């Protein structure tokens, strides 16, 4: 990450983000805040709420169908691994191909990393339960050459709105969702929202920081 003006981050009751503790955790939070705020105007702040989520928030219950047609609860998919999640839908031709390409690059970098890539994962979560199913998600992943570190899933219809409320992931326009990346710790708690379209290298760097390998 390039240099940003010095930012402070309260150390009082700092929540657990993952493995890092003490000064390294504060450093991570400050770093994440600086990254998430890069290039932001007040409007973007208000709508997308990028930055560290303090305290971390557990993801609401949501039944999902994965690209391999396995059914699960979203929290169980997230638990045990650090996750970078993006919103998308397979019928989206505007921003989603860009998001897919960025995650494809991030997965390549993550897989090429020296340390425990399997401790982290990428997840594309569809916001179109009516239009997307396992087959559509599988085909969408295949277009980008997705590997084992990157999965896709679609929530049940009744669980979509609570998820979007939780993520603050709505956006006006035909694509209807932000292009942010949402980071979850190993306890399936939301710890960070980025700005729209973060660079793949930043996604990997934040994943690795949360994994405690950076």
């Amino acid at each position: 990450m390039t240099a940003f003006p010095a930012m402070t981050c309260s150390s009082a009751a700092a929540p657990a983000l993952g493995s890092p503790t003490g000064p390294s955790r504060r450093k991570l939070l400050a770093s994440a805040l600086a990254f998430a705020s890069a290039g932001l105007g007040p409007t973007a702040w208000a709508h997308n709420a990028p930055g560290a989520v303090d305290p971390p928030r557990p993801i609401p219950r949501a039944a999902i169908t994965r690209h391999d047609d396995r059914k699960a609860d979203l929290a169980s998919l997230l638990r045990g691994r650090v996750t970078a999640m993006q919103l998308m839908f397979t019928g989206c031709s505007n921003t989603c191909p860009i998001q897919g390409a960025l995650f494809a690059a991030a997965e390549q970098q993550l897989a090429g990393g020296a340390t425990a890539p399997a401790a982290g994962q990428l997840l594309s979560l569809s916001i179109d339960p009516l239009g997307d199913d396992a087959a559509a998600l599988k085909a969408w992943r295949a277009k980008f050459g997705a590997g084992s570190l990157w999965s896709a899933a679609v929530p049940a219809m009744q669980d979509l709105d609570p998820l979007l409320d939780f993520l603050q992931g709505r956006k006006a326009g035909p694509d209807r969702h932000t292009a942010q990346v949402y980071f979850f710790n190993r306890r399936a708690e939301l710890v960070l929202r980025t700005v729209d379209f973060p660079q793949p290298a930043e996604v990997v760097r934040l994943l690795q920081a949360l994994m405690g390998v950076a």
Partner: protein
Amino acid sequence: MEPPASVGAVRWSLAGLACAVLIAGAGGFWFNQRQVRLEREADLWAQGHQLFQGEASELGALSGRLAGHADDLPAMATRCTNCHTSGGGTDAPSKAPEFAPRLNRQGLTQPTPRRGGPPSAYDAASLCKLLREGIDPAWVMVRQEMPRYAATDAQCVALWAFLVSPAPGQAHP
């Protein structure tokens, strides 16, 4: 001594024939030049169409990346047609919400307020500036998700020709 009348007639005939040959030659030359020009315009239009669709063309791929990013995106993520429609100058506006402006001769070349800026119109050079730098003719920056393209001059010319010209064999709408 004056030449006989028949000789004069022959001279006149030869002169007439020469004129006819000249006129036919000029007409043929003009026709040939016109055909060459039309073929060149058709090629340019086709190349611009291929670039717009994100297809390989004689002019090479149109590579692009998001502003501030280090790496190019794949063609499937940067093709113009992902977000824009083209042509349709006299079409009724689509009722479906469009993600990005429809690109056609009328919309590009008529002074129009864009992105909250003052009225502005494009030409080939300003389209090229927008493609490369993301800045429109009124100096307003386009949205973040519009890639910045490493467009060559030839690619810019072809895209402009495609966007503001009718398809080969068709008249302007």
